[in-house]
């Protein structure tokens, strides 16, 4: 019987076998893909669970109201919390106006010439510069040449330069999403360029810009390296009262505790990480909410 089917039957059998193998490869790949995805998900879960297990016992009122201490039981994040807050206020005050104005220039005013191209390439490159290099810039220019010392202000200036590319890129996208008909309608009514931008483009682009600014703030809150480089002090038993006072921030406090040998300090670090992550989750949720609202409006 088998011989009767001839060459056609044999090649059909060969095809069937090879097809099975080809399908198997597809299934195998799906498994590999799922495993890779799982690696990311599991890493995140393990990280979160570990931090909560290690740190939650140390999260009490005392932890928020105490300065750092040599004794783990008495150490807290008061200075770091206020330092982060002050630094972020100054950073955003510097970075948001400059970033938004740069975005307005590039989107609404700049001609299509080599200079505009140069600025754009330059911003793209700045986004790829390692954060610690910004720290060296801040150390040399703000701390040393401008004599701000290792202060809140020097840290904020450094951080503002670091997040500027993020704010510019986000603001440009928000401006680009404003339909041209808005501008044309405004021009038709006799408004000047700036009046058009100020009264019609900016209000529409605002939620997008805000989202970008919040994400940039989230990035700045978690940054450690540039602030260590400019010498943000790790032991600060006081609250900064002046822009030129020394300061510490949450990630530096965490770094400080992680670097100690005693395991009690590692628990403190975990507690600090919980606070940091909660702040970041809140910021990101606000950004996602704004993005969602933006989507429903258009």
């Amino acid at each position: 019987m088998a011989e009767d089917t001839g060459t056609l039957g044999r090649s059909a059998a060969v095809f069937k076998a090879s097809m099975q193998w080809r399908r198997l490869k597809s299934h195998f790949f799906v498994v590999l893909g799922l495993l890779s995805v799982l690696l990311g998900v599991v890493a995140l879960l393990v990280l979160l669970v570990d931090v909560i297990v290690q740190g939650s016992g140390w999260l009490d009122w005392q932890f928020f109201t105490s300065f750092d201490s040599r004794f783990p039981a008495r150490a807290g994040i008061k200075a770091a919390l206020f330092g982060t807050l002050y630094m972020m206020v100054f950073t955003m005050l510097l970075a948001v106006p400059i970033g938004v104005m740069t975005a307005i220039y590039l989107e609404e005013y700049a001609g299509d010439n080599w200079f505009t191209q140069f600025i754009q390439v330059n911003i793209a490159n700045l986004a790829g510069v390692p954060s610690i290099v910004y720290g060296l810039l801040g150390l040399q220019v703000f701390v040393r040449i401008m004599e701000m010392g290792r202060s809140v202000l020097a840290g904020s200036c450094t951080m503002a330069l670091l997040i500027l590319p993020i704010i510019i890129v986000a603001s440009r996208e928000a401006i680009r999403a404003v339909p041209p008909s808005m501008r044309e309608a405004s021009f038709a009514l006799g408004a000047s360029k700036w009046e058009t931008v100020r009264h019609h483009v900016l209000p529409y682009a605002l939620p997008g810009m805000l989202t970008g600014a919040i994400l940039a703030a989230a990035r700045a809150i978690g940054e450690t390296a540039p602030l260590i480089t400019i010498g943000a002090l790790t032991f600060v038993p006081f609250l900064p009262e002046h822009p030129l006072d020394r300061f510490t921030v949450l990630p530096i406090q965490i770094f400080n505790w992680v670097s100690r040998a005693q395991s009690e300090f590692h628990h403190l670090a975990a507690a600090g990480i919980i606070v940091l992550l909660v702040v970041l989750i809140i910021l990101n949720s606000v950004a996602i909410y704004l993005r969602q609202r933006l989507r429903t409006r258009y």
Partner: protein
Amino acid sequence: MAEDVSPFSHYPPRNDMSSRASRRFKEEAIRYVLLATATLSIVTTLGILLSLTGETLFFFREVSLVEFLTETEWTPLFAIKKFGIWPLVTATALVAFIALAVAIPTGLLIAIYLSEFASTRVRDVVKPVLEVLAGVPTVVYGYFALTLVTPILQEFIPGMRIFNALSAGIVMGIMIIPMVASLSEDAIGAVPQALREGAYGLGATRFEVALQVVVPAALSGIVASAVLALSRAVGETMIVSIAAGQNPTFTLDPRVPIETMTAYIVQVSLGDTPFASLEYRTIFAVGIMLFFLTFAMNIFAHWFVRRFREEYD
């Protein structure tokens, strides 16, 4: 005073010549203010270049470039000072290599899986997880490496020290996965649907479409994502400062403490090094190498995409 009642009183009078001139002046002034802020990005780049090169030139007045590039010991903080950059370079390369060995296969598999195989529901779960992973501060990853990954590795690998390149590299790889995944997915998403349909029409399976049609078509973007990941790994600071140690050792052994370029800058910054001392200048010499290394990689990645992109229009 009667004009004040008019609903249009807050508009500037248009037929007044002097007011028109002042309006034009205001418009021009605003243009120049905006131009000035846009120029700040160029000033920033210049500032980075000048502050790095300035101190580096002072550094090379005291240390010869030959010693910097041929010596294999780096001991600027000891009594007998030696300035060979190689221990820092090999350490950086070692950690970056381990990180990429984790991040590129995983990130690429995730990208291909999400864009070619996964259902929308899976994608809706995985994408936010990747975004969260990308948003976790690096100091948290450092904690993760030192207090969780290293003890686990010590169980399995004999001779594994508390500070080592392997743990830092693996965790850095996990940190970079979202970046590789999202950049590769962008490249894969840019491959026209017609290409896939053509391959399915010829009887190809999903695996064959993904690996033999889509990936080759998106290869330039995938290579660029790998180069950008390398640049990110070289510039990453906190994970290596916390978990890889502060011992500049000329070795490729992933089990022992080492010191990367970035970790060295952190180590010096933590001490109260006086301005204008030789130790102070070493971090700028190391910083300028870091800057040009990452700069070259970023430029290369962008050039590569533009040069080798497959055009299907």
